[in-house]
């Protein structure tokens, strides 16, 4: 049995070329398990002898062995140790750690748990972001770290930090649970930023992802999906037909309070909605959705005011207040003002006689920015449709697909299929 010292020496000596690394990886794998774990408590000083960037693989093995014991973490964890881990995650070499992705994920998860336990989630954000970039082979790949990272962003209320990875389009997924969590947390981050359309997209993905049995994440996502739909569109669309039958059958019964809320909302009576929300406040509270529910309530005013802009050119604040069931013209003024500031309506308030004049959308689609915006949309869509075409071609060439379609035709080909030359040429 080799001592830890010789192992460290090997690590220092064999971290150069890929061949050496492969050899080292074998050695480490042998050493891992009993021998390394036995000494796990004393591994911390050796870490200091290694350079996280040059000896990433060895460093990772020792780190993981050390962290695998909970008592070690309790004794040595906190302050300095976390700094060591964070530095390692930021500076490690991507090529080396990809040799042992499992170990790397363990290390990341350990860091996440530690910072949450220390109640300092913000400390984990930068290292984990670096870690995601290191372990990803392409920006389309979803790693298990994504969900952890987003969770930390949520806990630290650093929503903007989450955007850096949410803006990548995810297509490759390894574990379905990662995807559900990613969509759920992602939706929450966008809700936090009040970007409700994007939030809807994420939650929509969580609800409509294929599933053969119901899971708690999608139920929670569906609840939020209902609320955000109401805030954004004033109604909840029915399930699209590609939603798995499990979700279509079961989700509504698990979110009955929310479904009822939606039907109450559609009736358009503010007082009725308020009453309903108050009656069920504890249920919303226990789901941690009360804040969103309150936003749903106030969105009803906004929706009604928006409807007025379609009907009137000018309207007094009093009439606005009475037609959207606000108590005083002053309140109506506040709502209108806020909506003008948010760009949700185009209007001016004349304070002298208390009149609001509504305008048409001033956007004329003539400005350079608009043209650029349209152009970028076109480019994006063209790229997307190219991708679709290539995927379509791939499927058409897929042997399994051909087998299946061939079988559906009865497994036989008609004579006409082979006879491509018309008879008249003979």
């Amino acid at each position, binding site marked *: 049995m080799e001592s830890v010292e010789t192992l460290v020496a090997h690590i220092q000596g064999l971290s150069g070329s890929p061949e050496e690394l492969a050899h080292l990886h074998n050695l480490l794998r042998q050493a891992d398990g009993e021998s390394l774990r036995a000494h796990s408590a004393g591994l911390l000083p050796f870490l200091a002898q290694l350079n996280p960037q040059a000896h990433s693989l060895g460093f990772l093995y020792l780190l993981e062995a050390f962290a695998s014991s909970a008592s070690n973490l309790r004794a040595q964890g906190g302050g300095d140790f976390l700094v060591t881990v964070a530095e390692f995650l930021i500076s490690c070499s991507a090529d080396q750690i990809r040799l042992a992705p499992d170990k790397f994920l363990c290390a990341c998860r350990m860091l996440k748990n530690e910072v949450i336990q220390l109640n300092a989630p913000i400390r984990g954000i930068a290292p984990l972001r670096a870690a995601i970039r290191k372990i990803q082979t392409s920006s389309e790949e979803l790693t298990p770290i994504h969900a952890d990272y987003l969770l930390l962003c949520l806990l630290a209320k650093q929503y903007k930090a989450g955007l850096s990875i949410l803006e990548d389009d995810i297509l*490759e997924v390894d574990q*379905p*649970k990662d995807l559900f969590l990613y969509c759920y947390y992602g939706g929450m981050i966008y809700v936090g930023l009040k970007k409700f359309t994007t939030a809807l997209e994420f939650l929509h993905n969580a609800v409509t992802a*294929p599933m*053969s*049995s119901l899971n708690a994440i999608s139920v929670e996502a569906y609840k939020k999906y209902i609320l955000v739909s109401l805030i954004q569109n004033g109604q909840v669309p029915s399930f699209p037909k590609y939603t798995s039958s499990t979700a279509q059958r079961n989700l509504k019964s698990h979110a009955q309070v929310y479904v009822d809320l939606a039907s109450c909302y559609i009736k358009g009576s503010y007082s009725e909605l308020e009453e309903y929300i108050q009656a069920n406040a504890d249920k919303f509270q226990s789901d941690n959705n009360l804040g969103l529910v309150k936003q749903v309530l106030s969105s009803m005013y906004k929706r009604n005011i928006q409807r007025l802009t379609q*009907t009137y050119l000018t309207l*007094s604040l009093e009439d606005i207040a009475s037609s959207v069931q606000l108590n005083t013209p002053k309140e109506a003024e506040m709502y209108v003002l806020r909506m003008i500031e948010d760009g949700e309506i185009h209007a001016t308030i004349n304070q002298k006689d208390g009149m609001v004049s*509504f305008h048409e959308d001033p956007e004329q689609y003539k400005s350079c920015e608009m043209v650029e915006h349209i152009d970028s949309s076109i480019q994006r869509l063209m790229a*997307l449709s190219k991708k679709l075409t290539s995927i379509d071609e791939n499927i058409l060439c897929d042997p399994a697909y051909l087998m299946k379609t061939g079988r559906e035709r009865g497994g036989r080909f008609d004579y006409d299929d082979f006879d491509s030359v018309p008879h008249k040429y003979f």
Partner: protein
Amino acid sequence: MDVEGEVPAAAAAAVANGLGGAEPSPAPICAEQLDVEAYAAQYTGRTRLGRLLFIAERCGVEAVELEALRMAYDEIKRGEDTMFHRDVALKIKARLGPRYLLDQAWTDSINRRAEQRKEKLESELNGYRTNLIKESIRMGYNDIGDFFYAHGHLSDAFKSYIRTRDYCTTSKHIVQMCMNVILVSIELGQFPHVSNYVSKAEQTPDTLEPIIVAKLRAAAGLAYLATKKYKLAARKFVETGPELGSNYSEVIAPQDIAVYGALCALASFDRSDLKSKVIDNINFRNFLELMPEVRELVNDFYSSRYGSCLEHLEKLKPNLLLDIHLHEHVETLYMDIRHKAIIQYTLPFISVDLNTMAAAFKTSVSMLEKELAALITENKIQARIDSHNKILYARHADQRNATFQRVLQTGNEFERDVKSLLLRANLIKHDFNQRAGQRKM
């Protein structure tokens, strides 16, 4: 004196019927307008009785109610329907003196005779059936149907008439069968059967007599009216030929055709249809001549004199509420006509002064504003209200901007859909679905 003491009882009876209580408001207006006798003279047969009873129930004025009941009583005595007789006698409650009481002796004798006649008819029919003579069987069923109809057993009559169907040999017989079934179905209020048998009658190979065609049109119109398909109903009524005259008085009077057709047309036709199918329609003009008020209001509507048109309508309303077929559609039709009038009024203008408009429609500015707002919300008027200056401005949608907006929106939707589609496709491709099932929850 006796009559005066009965007033509260009459009110109580009206409430107990569940009808007078529901619509107390229009009651007092109609009393002086409706001449029950003239009205009843337009109809014959059971529909006359039905209409009289309907008026008695709905009008809410005792004088009219008793007048209607008295006429119904006299009419019934001439017929053989003992159940009707009992109904009416109970409703009169001895308010018309001793001449109008439940006549038990008459009832018994009629019933006895009816029993004998029924037996005779049935044995005759059995005889025909054993001899297997088609024509006789048909006649037998027909006679039994007539018998039941006369005695008020409508659903039995309906069944007997339907049975003649298997024994019809010529299209004339089929038409006769259809007309019988239609008549009974209208009385029963089974309007799906009415449209069903109207189309059966129209499908017979021989050309039909103009009178029959007109009757079928009127019946079809009634059926559509009952199912609230006002546009189709209007079509049928305006297509009804003048041959109808008073030949279909057991169902409908020509005056009714004019009213039903005109109201349904106003509520559902557009301007050009109104001109070509109603005003310039020579056939229908004959009907309109019978109801000068209705003719005036159609012309008023077409020449945009909405004020006087709505005024005429209001005048007609109490009588229409007492019409057995139209009463439940009056409110909807009036609402539709009013909305159409408002929409047509605003259509040619870029801006409309609400004060002028309110005057034209004889309403207040604030009420009009509310109506307009509702219509704009339903997207029936393309305009916006300047509530400050009380002016309505037409809104011309900017095609260019709208197109830009729609294109960008479609692009975004497409992008979103394709991305989530690719994601789902990838998930399915790797069969995560299955694994998810085993691992979670």
